[in-house]
């Protein structure tokens, strides 16, 4: 384990023109509550390379989902800026208009009255090239070839999350944001989806920012792990383990052990498996 330095070989291999870099400068988010102003994080600086797989980890209430929402534009920042730099262009402004962002949520947030294909069609409002074949293509990619016309209520939890992932990928995003997408699933399904996500990432080369509170999951997936706590990023670790990663291998277990130690270095606590 080493503190972050750009691993040129790994990142360059995965990066494509379809990936964007994310630049976070002086970012802060505060909420007004009945008891005053609560600062979730402040003065965050962060640079995420195009095509990299970055995992943001933190304890419950550390503000990792809020950070993701600010980056995606669902929430406005209280201060600072988020800039997206597409891989193939110089941009003016913050680049939010130039890049597509795919969001995968903790619960897939599908429309229960629409079929799997219609759920994907829903996010293609201004896409003149959209046809249902595109939706089917992405459903194939996540292993749902037999379920095009099924309603979410007719799918298992893992299948619903797959539709959520297909929906996010179908807009051909330069950035893919995933907010604890597997935390509501059983471990077997979650592990299978992690492998599929990695396979899709290697195939499509998107920039991925993945939020979790599970250290094993973080080490399994990430090029780089950011630890968020007390309103700041207190650790930035490069994961230099070879892929595919065997969670039972000695190197993995040792790395995980050091990551756990680092995770708890900020204070005690129960989170972080």
């Amino acid at each position, binding site marked *: 384990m080493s503190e972050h330095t750009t691993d040129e070989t790994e990142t360059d291999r995965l990066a494509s023109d379809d990936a964007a870099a994310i630049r976070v400068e002086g970012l802060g988010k505060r909420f007004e509550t009945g008891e005053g102003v609560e600062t979730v994080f402040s003065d965050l600086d962060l640079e995420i390379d195009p095509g990299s797989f970055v995992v943001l980890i933190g304890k419950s209430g550390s503000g990792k989902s809020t950070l993701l929402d600010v980056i995606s534009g669902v929430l406005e920042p209280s201060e600072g800026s988020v800039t997206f730099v597409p891989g193939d262009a110089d941009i003016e402004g913050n680049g939010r208009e130039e890049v597509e*962002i795919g969001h995968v949520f903790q619960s897939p947030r599908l429309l229960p009255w629409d079929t799997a294909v219609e759920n994907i069609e829903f996010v293609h409002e201004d896409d003149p090239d959209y046809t249902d074949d595109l939706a089917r293509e992405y459903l194939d990619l996540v292993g749902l070839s037999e379920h095009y016309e099924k309603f979410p209520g007719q799918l298992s939890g893992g299948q619903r999350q797959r539709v959520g992932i297909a929906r996010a990928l179908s807009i051909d995003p330069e950035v893919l944001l995933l907010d604890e997408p597997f935390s509501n699933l059983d471990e077997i399904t979650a592990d299978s989806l992690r492998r599929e996500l990695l396979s899709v990432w290697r195939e499509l080369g998107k920039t991925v920012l993945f939020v979790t509170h599970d250290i094993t999951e973080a080490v399994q997936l990430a090029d780089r792990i950011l630890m968020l706590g007390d309103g700041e990023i207190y650790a930035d670790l490069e994961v230099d383990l070879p892929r595919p990663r065997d969670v039972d291998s000695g190197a993995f277990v040792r790395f995980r052990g050091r990551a756990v130690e680092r995770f708890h270095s900020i204070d005690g606590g129960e989170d972080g498996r």
Partner: protein
Amino acid sequence: MAVEGARLRGGDLTDRWLPRAVGLGLTFVLWWGLAKWFELTSPVSPIPYPVETLTAAADLYLTGAVFAHLLPTLSRIVVGFAGAMLLGTVAGVLMGTTAYGEKFLSPFVVLGLALPSVALAAMARLVWGFSFAAPTTAAAVAVSPFVAINVWKGVENLDRDRLEMARSFEVSNRRLLRRVLLPDVAPALFAASRFGVALSWKVVTVTEVFAAASGVGYRVNQARGSYQYVDAGAWVVAFMAVVVLVEYGAFKPLERRAFAHRDDEDVELTGAR
């Protein structure tokens, strides 16, 4: 497959139609028993036998006499119900979206729910006299609180996660309304519509007793006044045929289409008593 289809149809017959047939049969037996009991114990029986009532009702349709009173009643129901849906939906949306709206309108809704139909009918007669406005206004005032309370709860329980998902994929407000908000409140609107039609019919016919020179309520009251019990029963049965037609010809097919994604087709009603 053919055998499976036949089995399904057989199951449909015993699961859906048999209980209805048994219920209908029991109703006729009880009705007949009641008519017999009154015949044996009263000098003049107020309860006509089922067969003579149904025959008289059929005659009303066959001679076309029913339409002179059925159509005015139906037009009053349609207008009263439409007014109630408009009033109730506006009130419900205001109550579900603003705290002020909720506080301001709640007392009116509670009072409206408690208002007896007969009192409304009498009031409508005093205010509007013998006119089209009397039964329609009475229906609109009586039904709108039920619509309001259902729409209020529907709006209040809107799934915020789905709204956030739509925002993160930059879906337009028009699409949001059509694909997310309306389907989400549809069960509440549907329940309100179904109950609203039934209640409108009751209030309109009661008001027609006091404040109309045509309509089913007027005819039932006329028959009562001249002790023509078979005639009174025939008018009630003639209108019930329309209610059954609306339920199974319009509401049920619409419900099956609108809620095809749901396992249960029953739509919960708030405030029904």
